């Protein structure tokens, strides 16, 4: 699948975006990993659709994190992004952090989102099952990160995961990783990766919604999927058995089947 990298201007910020495919537009909002890069699951999502994966401010070469004070500023950024793209309404797939942004967009501007996939999304809070503090992970122990992000730390995708502490990485990659963590901290340090106001406005969402979770998500546990599905009118929860937080990497077949089945 062909893909192109492009720069678009949103509120005066240069935004990095990767695109591919033909058809109706589909917006992919990336996780804290900053995967606005042509990973296999993005390529698969672009079959029959025009897939757009912008990098959030502060990720890759996207500018403007200085002006993003909190999640509300991030949501306003994406509202303007939709205007720039000229989309009255669009389908959105959001993974983890990207799912949080997508849920906020759909709750605050319901008419702008048609179909919504919340995949392993943070953004709300379940007191009995706190979201894992990803900021406290000791980079000296990459296996801990793997155990957190994947059910099976030995699966092929998990073994590809690197941390600055354990291998020699080129500067550009190190910088991208540091920037990604810093930008995630900017909006998600405290309250930890959620917005206490979001749960109370989820009833406003009008988009058709799929909540898609790995059964053994150790970062944003399945209870979050259950709560999202309960609060969003008409939402459906689909659970991928024996799968962790990064479901599109750990079990791409099941994850893609669910997303594509839902989007139609």
């Amino acid at each position: 699948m062909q893909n192109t990298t492009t720069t678009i201007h949103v509120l005066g910020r240069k935004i990095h975006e990767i695109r591919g495919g033909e058809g109706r537009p589909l917006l992919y909002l990336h996780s804290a990993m900053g995967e606005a890069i042509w990973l296999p699951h993005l390529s698969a999502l672009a079959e029959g659709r025009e897939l757009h994966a912008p990098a959030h401010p502060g990720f890759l070469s996207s500018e403007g994190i200085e002006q993003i004070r909190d999640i509300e500023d991030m949501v306003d950024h994406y509202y303007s992004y939709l205007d720039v793209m000229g989309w009255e309404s669009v389908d959105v797939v959001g993974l983890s952090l990207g799912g949080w942004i997508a849920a906020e967009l759909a709750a605050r501007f319901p008419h702008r989102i048609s179909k919504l996939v919340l995949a392993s999304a943070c953004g709300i809070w379940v007191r009995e099952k706190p979201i894992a503090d990803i900021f406290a992970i000791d980079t000296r122990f990459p296996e801990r990160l793997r155990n957190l992000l994947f059910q099976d730390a030995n699966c092929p995708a998990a073994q590809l995961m690197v941390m600055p502490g354990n291998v020699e990485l080129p500067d550009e990659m190190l910088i991208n990783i540091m920037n990604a963590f810093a930008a995630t901290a900017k909006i998600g340090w405290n309250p930890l990766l959620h917005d206490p106001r979001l749960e109370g406005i989820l009833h406003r969402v009008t988009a058709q919604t799929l909540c898609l979770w790995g059964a053994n998500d150790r970062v944003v546990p399945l209870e979050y999927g259950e709560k999202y599905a309960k609060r969003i009118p008409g939402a459906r929860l689909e659970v991928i058995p024996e799968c962790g937080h990064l479901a599109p990497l750990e079990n791409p077949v099941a994850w893609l089947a669910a997303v594509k089945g839902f989007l139609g």
Partner: protein
Amino acid sequence: MKHFLFHLMPYRELPHDFEKTHESAWVWAPNSLFDPEKAHGYYNEYIDQLAEAEPLGFDGVCVNEHHQNVYGLMPSPNLIASMLVMRTRRIKIAVVGNALPLYNPPTRVAEEIAMLDVISGGRIISGQVIGGGPEYFSFSINPAEARTRFAEAHELIMRAWTQPGPFEFYGEHYKLRYVNVFPRPLQKPHPPIWIPGAGSLETMEFVAKRRYAYMGIPYFHIDFFKRNYALFRECCEKEGYQAHPEQMGLLMPIYVAETDAKARREFEEHFWYFKNKLIPGLTLSPPGYTSVKSALRVFKSLKDGKTFINGCESWEDVEKGCFAIVGSPETVAEKIVEHASEIGCGNMLGLFQLGSMPSAQARENARRYAEAVMPRVNKELPNTIRPMPAAMPFPDERK
């Protein structure tokens, strides 16, 4: 040379296997380890050690701020400083850290330092710090805002001390309608400002421009300090002046005994207690806490495993990197003169109690330093006559 006695107030009697059963001395080291009966003794002994700096002939003492750790029992340096104000009459009291982003509103720092300065008759040095990485976990304050909060809080405090109030302060993080701190400091225009740094160029440029004093964050290899102070002096030159020695300070564990061999014998176990039990976790660097440029530089300089104290595995490593100055009075004086003259610093900040070192031993150490090292150093490195450059007032032409 000005000599300061610096105290960290460590927790001394941790279980012998603490470092095997705990990954961090910071943030997550369980407070069930804290024994208040023991700490009653520690605090009183440590305050006595600090107060004794005056009769011994030190120029000042330093206290600092850290939270939720076994490394230092001083979450509130201002409380300890207030006790020292009443226990001393002559010496300077450097509060090296109030961690400004941890105070909201930061005018609290302006008030408390002003109180201390007024009560002490103008003996306070105001250290203003960003706070260590672990503090951002302990306070759940956003590390991505550390730098901007610090810059804004610093400006607010300096203006609160020097500009007639009430005035409005409208910042990104702090919006105060009526700034009017009462009391104001006794020293005019304000107490001396000390800013610590770990080598980031941004901090050096800031300190040089404002004519404050730059204090290197300790526990690095001596060559790392030498590079950093050379950079700092360059920054001052770019600002059109020559750095004053008292704009720079070197902070080191110091131990003095009759002979080199005896000094090492008495000191070494306490150094390893410090390095193995109290240091792990200190270098936590939460995301956004430093600029990516600085983070990359630090990451690379630590990579060789020999630049920071945590890489020390043998006494040879300690000596080679000068992670502590240990020996007979002659040896200690010689090393201080050698390094201080190369660095160009006019302040020597000594940790005379380190790790598990008992109080009687720490007091004897400080006494031997005062009697036998200070005169030797002062003879070689007399105080600089020319006055310190005047700090630049706010508001200025800052972009």
